[in-house]
């Protein structure tokens, strides 16, 4: 299976070619080179998937070389291909390819066209390393690497200081998480003396449930996931990350990179299954994030911001699922979310493209006639994300909620509340953008046009996937066979052996399941209806900035979390820096220079002894002799 190496290598090659020759290669060629890598990687991934199943679904280990060897610790540069990485590979390369193709059209007029493709390819390379690596450190390479690419792409238009700040914020917040992850690795090394999944998990499986080391490891790794997957409290970078070009938002900040945290938790399911305490925390954090993101999404007016908060919220759902050990459902949601969220972003990109870079939905409206393909695909995506059957989102979200219900009914209730909000803001977005009358300038109206084929084709493909993706894992209650869950089941065998109690939960009866589905679907539909009434029937448009009042204002301003962070962390760090630089350095230097001063002053005093008077000199001599004599004859 050595061709597996090619999967990450091809995008890297694309990066190198476009990166080194970004000024000389003609644009058309750049697009082709840039897209060829991901497409080829996708093809190889499909081939890998097929051959993986053909050879009996045993995990494949590809050892490339020993990367870091220190003492007894060996960190090989190796890949591990199993169900989880294969699925991730397919998502990444598949969605990635589509987005690359989309970008050919979207970024065509940008002067940094070559640079853009280089960065995108580099991102794919790191993302693939992340999911293919056979140990925590290789995952960390990808983990940080995608952070770097995210940084580069958010700040892609680097003349704009705000964008640069957003990029920096993203990188630093990720780094905070990365530190947690890194400490987790250190603890793993300390505990197990290895970092290879196979070795570590084998050893971990013998440990007791809730043993402190495991809890600490899982907590630390989860901190990493908080950063990467934008969970409370490290989520604020993600909405800001929308400063990047829209394909970036689709690929990195919706479909792939932000799901790395979920991938990591599923990958480490042996750890997590042994740490129920951590799982509880994850569930709570996930749920809180889901609600927070959704509530903020309700009042946002920037089309990409809405989607960004939606992403935060959906990621929260995924963690909620992980927290109740619904690993496969969460992953299922990762997958469907990749489809419809990528689609939403790409659709939004198409709208923005058409609107001459306008992103405020208050200035849009009635676009469905001008952008039919975009509209149609957007509708599919909206329905999918709102959890309305039979589109994909329904299946994945319901899968999670069903598991949550077994764990805690309150959480389930709150989860449904979240999905109500989701449905509402998504339909609000849809209606404000595509329905009603156009509210933008004449000039914008004049330029309105459907996007080129390279952009609409990916939309259509993604729309199809969003529509039918759910059928991959139809629950038994709906006469499905849970194909995906079945496929992924071997991943949890070890964990189930280690902590059988946790896996031995009862299944809901079909009736219960129907009721749950009914409630959530009904709620989503109601919310959609509500949105319809408000924004289509009543044709109300959100208030202009600064006009919001009360709770609305609080929510619109994202609960002032950014401001709070700024005041608490950024300001205090700056103050500390200034203080250390002025006061601290001064004080330390005072001691150093003071020593010199003391000597100098002593010299100034001491030289006064040298007063030039012979009699004094003789006196000092006599005194010296006297003291010597006295000391030697009496005192000693």
């Amino acid at each position, binding site marked *: 299976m050595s061709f597996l190496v090619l999967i990450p290598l091809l995008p890297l090659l694309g990066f190198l070619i476009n990166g080194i020759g970004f000024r000389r290669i003609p644009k058309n060629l750049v697009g082709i080179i840039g897209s060829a890598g991901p497409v080829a990687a996708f093809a190889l991934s499909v081939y890998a998937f097929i051959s993986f199943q053909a050879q009996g679904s045993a995990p494949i280990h590809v050892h490339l070389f020993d990367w870091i060897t220190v003492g007894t610790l060996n960190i090989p540069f190796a890949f591990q291909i199993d169900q989880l990485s294969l699925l991730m590979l397919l998502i990444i390369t598949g969605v990635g390819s589509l987005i690359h193709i989309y970008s050919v059209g979207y970024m065509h007029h940008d002067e940094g066209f070559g640079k853009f493709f280089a960065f995108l390819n580099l991102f794919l390379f790191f993302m693939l390393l992340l999911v293919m690596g056979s140990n925590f450190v290789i995952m960390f390479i990808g983990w940080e690497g995608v952070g770097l690419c995210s940084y580069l792409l958010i700040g892609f238009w680097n003349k704009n200081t705000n964008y640069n700040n957003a990029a920096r914020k993203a990188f630093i917040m990720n780094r905070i998480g990365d530190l947690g992850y890194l*400490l987790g690795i*250190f603890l793993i090394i300390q505990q197990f003396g290895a970092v290879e999944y196979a070795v570590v998990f084998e050893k971990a499986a013998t440990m007791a449930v809730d043993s402190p080391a495991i809890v600490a490891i899982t907590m630390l790794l989860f901190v990493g996931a908080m950063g990467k997957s934008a969970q409370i409290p490290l989520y604020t970078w993600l909405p800001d990350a929308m400063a990047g070009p829209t394909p970036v938002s689709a690929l990195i900040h919706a479909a792939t990179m932000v799901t790395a945290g979920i991938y990591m938790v599923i990958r480490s399911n042996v750890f997590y299954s042994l740490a129920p305490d951590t799982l509880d925390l994850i569930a709570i954090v996930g749920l809180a994030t889901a609600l927070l993101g959704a509530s903020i999404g309700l009042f946002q007016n920037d089309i990409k911001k809405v989607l960004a908060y939606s992403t935060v919220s959906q990621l929260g759902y995924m963690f909620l699922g992980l927290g109740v050990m619904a690993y496969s459902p969460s992953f299922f949601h990762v997958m469907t979310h990749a489809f419809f969220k990528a689609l939403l972003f790409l659709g939004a990109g198409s709208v923005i493209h058409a609107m001459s870079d306008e992103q405020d939905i208050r200035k849009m409206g009635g676009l469905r006639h001008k952008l039919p393909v975009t509209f149609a695909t957007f509708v599919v995506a909206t329905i999918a994300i709102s959890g309305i059957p039979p589109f994909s989102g329904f299946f994945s979200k319901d899968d999670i909620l069903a598991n949550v219900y077994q764990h805690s009914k309150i959480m389930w209730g709150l989860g449904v509340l979240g999905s109500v909000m989701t449905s509402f803001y998504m339909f609000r977005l849809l209606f404000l953008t595509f329905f009603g009358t156009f509210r933008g300038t004449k000039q914008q109206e004049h330029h309105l046009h459907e996007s080129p084929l390279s952009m609409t084709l990916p939309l259509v493909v993604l729309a199809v996937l969003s529509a039918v993706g759910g059928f991959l894992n139809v629950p038994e209650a709906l006469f499905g066979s849970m194909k995906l869950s079945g496929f992924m089941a071997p991943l949890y065998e070890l964990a189930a052996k280690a902590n059988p109690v946790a896996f031995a939960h009862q299944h809901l009866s079909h009736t219960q399941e129907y009721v749950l589905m009914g409630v959530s679907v009904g709620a989503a539909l109601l919310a959609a209806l509500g949105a319809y009434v408000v924004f289509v029937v009543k044709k109300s448009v959100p208030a202009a900035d600064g006009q919001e009042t009360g709770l609305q204002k609080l929510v619109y301003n994202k609960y002032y979390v950014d401001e709070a962070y700024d005041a608490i962390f950024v300001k205090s760090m700056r103050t500390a820096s200034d203080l250390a630089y002025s006061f601290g350095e001064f004080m330390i230097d005072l001691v150093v220079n003071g020593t010199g001063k003391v000597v100098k002053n002593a010299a100034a005093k001491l030289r006064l002894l040298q007063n030039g008077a012979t009699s004094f000199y003789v006196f000092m001599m006599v005194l010296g002799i006297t003291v010597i004599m006295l000391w030697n004859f009496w005192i000693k």
Partner: protein
Amino acid sequence: MLTLLLLIIPLLAGGLVLVTKNNSAKQIALLAALIELATACVAFVQFKANASTQFGFSYAWIPSAGITFSAGIDGINLLLVMLTAFLVPLIILSTFRQLYKNASVFYALILFMQGALIGVFTATDAFLFYFFFEAALIPVYFLAAIWGGENRVKVTFKFFIYTIFGSLFMLVALVYLYSQTPGTHTAQITAFYQLGLGSYTQGLIFWAFFIAFAIKMPLFPFHTWQPDTYTESPTPATMLLSGIMLKMGVYGLIRFILPIVPIGLQTWGNAAIVLSVIGIIYGSIIAVQQRDMKRLVAYSSFAHVGLMAAGVFSKNINGLQGALIQMLAHGINVVGLFFVIEIIFSRTKTRNIEQLGGITQRAPYLTVYFMILMLGSVALPLTNGFVGEFLLLSGVYDYNKWLGAVAGITIILGAVYMLRMFQRAMFGSKSSFTEHISDLSFSEKMVLFPLAFMVFWIGLYPNSFLALTQPAVLNLLNSIHY
């Protein structure tokens, strides 16, 4: 014998350069440095990955006192020798666009400095080590004080006295250790390992060494000479100081403190490591608000070296191997960064990041190299900085998890200040200073390319270095008797 060659080439060449005409000095210096590099490469290739001292030589120097002129390369100094041999030609090349007064003296001093540095790293006799340890100070002092900035005299004087003050403490320790060796005394460092001193004595010697090396590196709170000196020195001197010379301190920790006073380290190691960690955070925090790029990198270097010291003091294989590889990595990164700053400064006449901006629009190559070096410096995986910091932090974490966690904050703060500098200088809109900035010249690329290459080599395949140092480090750790 290779070691002798390595030692002699720069010294002879320095003498030669001193008597040549000013305008041909740099070429001859570069040639000599390249020959040195080639020699070092031969040593690197022929080096056998075991714990022995190789290519060594030993001549009676002061036979009546048992002091020998002996040196050799082993796993612990190999990388430092390579670093010195690798960086000096680049440092010389980096000055090719500059015109220095009395160029022959300038380049001769650089070469003398190189010779002394090689001497420090390879000496196997304690007094020879000390001899070079202080001798290395003289050329760099003159480099900094003659060709430096406005406040150079005051600043470098402080630096000089401060560091010598520290090394004098080491002299006390060395002299004492020497006097404790049995029979007709010997100053072989390895002989010091066998002394088995009492714990009180070890504590005192530990501090004597610690102060010497802490000032040299520098560690918190002995660092106040450093930012000023780095800022005021001419960039080649800054590169020598930060790229190579501060490693003398870290190297000293490994070579002397660990094996000679293990009990002292046992007793006082906590204090030392806490100081190191404080320094990491303190330096990083200060760097956050700096405007002068040179000063910023100076503080960052201060923070990095704190981590190296912490790694060494954690006394485990990860920490030590991390320190060794990080010394190499840090030397490369910091020299590169200072060079980039010098490039920007030479074109814009300012190092204040508030006055810069938008450089990337006119100088993409500069941006790329700057970014690579910066990423190395913030320890992004697959760059050299990561390997070092990963191992160091893991070593410190093994020593004490809380210290490890606190030290780890450096990777966050490192990103904070480095990205800030990078963004302010390279991104945004152009300022009046950067309006006409030009991209890299050929000679500048010739300096930056090897550096960038090393950033990735070490990052991608660190085992090619780690494997060479491992036996020596393991041997060292095994030889520590408590």
